[in-house]
């Protein structure tokens, strides 16, 4: 199970789901589904998020059974 703290990262950057969605080229419902762990994004999308937040992917996605 892959967990994430996308909501926190978004709050730090003070952007809405819609703004993040627009920036990385997906719909708002996709960001909602990722934040609520209904959907695990592809590597491509995770890398686009990483570039947008300026942080490595493993800082906002991690495996549940491992320490972040």
């Amino acid at each position, binding site marked *: 199970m892959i967990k994430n703290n996308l909501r926190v990262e978004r709050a730090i950057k003070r952007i809405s*789901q819609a703004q993040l969605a627009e920036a990385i080229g*997906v*719909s708002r*419902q996709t960001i909602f*589904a990722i934040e609520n762990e*209904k959907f695990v994004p592809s590597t491509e999308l995770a890398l686009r998020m990483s570039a947008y937040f300026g942080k490595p992917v493993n800082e906002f996605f991690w495996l549940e059974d491992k320490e972040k």
Partner: protein
Amino acid sequence: MATKTKNIGMILPHRFQTVGWWTLAASAITFIILLIIDLATTQEKLAAIGINGVDVWEGFLGILVPILANFTLFLLCMSSEKEEDEFVMHVRMGIIKRLVCYWFIVELIEVLLFFFAGRLLPISSISILSLIFRPLTNIYVLSFVYIIWLKISLYRIRKEAARD
């Protein structure tokens, strides 16, 4: 780094879906007209004119309905959503997996029921079973279920996202 929402793997762009809803309405109207003509044609009338004497319009509509139905389902199933991305594709795949699973289960039940009904029940029961099972595994019905299921799933996600 704004990027456009990607159309992942869908054959047709979203505008074809709108065309599909219009052709669905057209095929439904055509089907109703055909049904009215069919009901108005009594057995006596058919016996009098013979199968070759069937109205040209009825023959034309009889061909038009399946063509329109196929065309409509192709447009609706194969065109992308307004905002098609990998999450919508994930929802699509989930629905297709469930429908394939359902199809195998219903087919298995049907085969078993036909096998036992053929040996234990009167022959008329086979016709009744056939009437019940044919629509359950029909590709047109399953395609339509797929479209409606996808629309409902996306609507529910959008609604949840709006509440968030």
